[in-house]
């Protein structure tokens, strides 16, 4: 059996519910739902339990029912204390108007068009036909209206903060002692996470006042791996001052579940891959290791390409000198006579932004036989070699 208290005037409703049961779901700020399992040993039958609840919550709407959502609907929509015996749900819920159900606009419109007004109207419809027309959502609503929708309770659990901190009298200037302390912190945090079957999804490291956030590619509580990531992070971006306050916080998340398949194409192990990428990021810079993407724009080099001709960019574009009369081109390391040319194709965009572009593009073959893309920037009046087709 479940009890639901709906009491808009209450200040701390959950505390009241906690006095009756350790499994309390906070449905809304003014509504709590809890299980009555075992309470019959203290209060006797449901009627006596309801009386005890009414004494603690005078003026509240209280409902006791066999299923959680039935109790919630009754407490929210029926005044006073209501005890609904199992099997008699329709007698209590049947006359309630349909807008007491959590309906979305589309389903509400459909039910209204069908002329349905009360729970009883909806409960009488054949379940198969309702499923054909409204799908699973429709059947779920009908079961709710019949008082026959079961679900497990979602008990409120106090959020645990997984944090370790230390304030030192003598500030640390070297990385090694900082890593030593971080190892201890990680051991503690990972043990706590393991006891709750959780893993770290993010690590927040605070050095004095500066906070860094390490977003992990997958949830883990592997101390060695986490320490390696912290080490790479600290080495790539040194604290810059002696550290006297060190705080490490792990953001908990559900653990990773993996089911390997015999026929799956082998992929890099996430732990090793992340560790490798961290090392490479520390070497070439974090912005230089990424998954390439195509953006939704016509900006040259960013948006989708129309031709599969492979292209190599000169980054940044090479300033070029073009002698129009003689058809000669000269840029850093590249020079020759233009033998064939195609263009111009004018492209412009983002005129409302500081990095707007407006240029005329040419494809040209130089006397060395290579095919280049040249553009004339209409804003800076400069010729630039953008790259080479390859």
């Amino acid at each position: 059996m479940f009890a639901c208290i709906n009491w808009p005037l209450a200040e701390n409703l959950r505390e009241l519910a906690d006095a009756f049961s350790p499994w309390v779901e906070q449905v809304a700020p003014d509504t709590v739902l809890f299980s009555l399992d075992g309470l019959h040993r203290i209060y006797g039958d449901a009627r006596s339990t309801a009386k005890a609840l009414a004494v603690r919550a005078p003026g509240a709407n209280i409902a006791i029912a066999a299923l959680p959502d039935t109790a919630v609907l009754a407490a929210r929509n029926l005044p006073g204390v209501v005890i609904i015996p199992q099997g008699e749900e329709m007698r209590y819920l049947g006359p309630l108007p349909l807008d007491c159900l959590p309906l979305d606009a589309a389903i509400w419109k459909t039910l209204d068009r069908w002329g349905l007004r009360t729970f009883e109207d909806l409960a009488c419809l054949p379940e198969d036909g309702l499923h054909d027309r409204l799908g699973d959502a429709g059947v779920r609503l009908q079961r709710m209206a019949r008082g026959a929708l079961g679900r497990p309770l979602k008990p409120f659990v106090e959020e645990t903060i997984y944090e370790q901190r230390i304030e030192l009298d003598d500030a640390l200037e070297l990385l090694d002692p900082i890593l030593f302390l971080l190892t201890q912190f990680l051991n503690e945090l990972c043990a706590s996470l393991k006891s709750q079957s959780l893993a770290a999804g993010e690590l927040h490291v605070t050095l004095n006042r500066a906070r860094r956030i390490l977003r992990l590619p997958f949830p883990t509580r592997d101390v060695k791996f986490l320490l390696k990531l912290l080490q790479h992070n600290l080495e790539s971006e040194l604290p810059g001052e002696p550290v006297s306050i060190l705080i490490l916080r792990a953001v908990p998340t559900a653990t990773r579940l993996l089911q390997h398949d015999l026929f799956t194409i082998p992929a890099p192990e996430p732990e090793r891959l992340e560790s490798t990428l961290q090392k490479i990021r520390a070497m070439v810079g974090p912005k230089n290791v990424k998954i390439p993407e195509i953006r939704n724009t016509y900006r040259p080099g960013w948006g989708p390409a129309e031709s599969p001709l492979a292209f190599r960019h000169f980054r940044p574009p090479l300033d070029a000198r073009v002698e129009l009369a003689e058809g000669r081109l000269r840029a850093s390391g590249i020079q020759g006579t233009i033998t064939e040319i195609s263009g111009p194709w004018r492209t412009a965009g983002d005129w409302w932004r500081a990095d707007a572009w407006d240029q005329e593009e040419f494809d040209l073959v130089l006397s060395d036989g290579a095919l280049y893309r040249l553009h004339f920037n209409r804003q800076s009046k400069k010729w630039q070699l953008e790259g080479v087709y390859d």
Partner: protein
Amino acid sequence: MAKMTALALPLGWRHQTDPDCLPTGIEGIDFPRGRISEIAGPSSSGRTSLLDSLLASATSRGEHCVLIDTRDSFDPPSAAAYGVRLEKLIWIRCRGNAEHALRAADLVLHSGGFGVVALDLADVPAAGLNRIPPTAWFRFRRVVEPTPTIFVVLANRPVTKSCSTLLIETRRRSVKFLRGVDYEIASRKPAGKEPVKFHVRLHQLAVG
């Protein structure tokens, strides 16, 4: 008899087995797994087209690939147009630093699990290429040998010497505006194969 031959080999020697190959979509050009392959050629000779077709072939099979881009010249839109699934590709930009590129390649190969690891040394100045110690290629060969990874090196001229199993030299044949570019691929190692000609045009790759 074969068993006796195997026993007679000195310690540390192993029999060479034919590697599995990954087709590129261009007839006659397959890249061996667990080996170093090299694509060499000047600008506009089709070397990047060949690399893109290899990456397209590997990523379309669901394999994860890495491109180590020494000169930061990779163009994602044209690669995607070629059929490369960009979400399966990790792009490491080395901003012209060949030493960083080699170290990144070493780390990636040791990490393992990739279908193709491409080291793009094209357009790196000759002085930079000359500074690469030959032992680096022997080291890469040893690392990649027991794995199913294809390690491809792209450069203006052959650099891996005897460490590569496959060496492809590319040449451009002709450019026809609004129609496409003709390329020719000559395999120098293993020798004796006929050159393959291919044509890249606006919306498809044709072999001919």
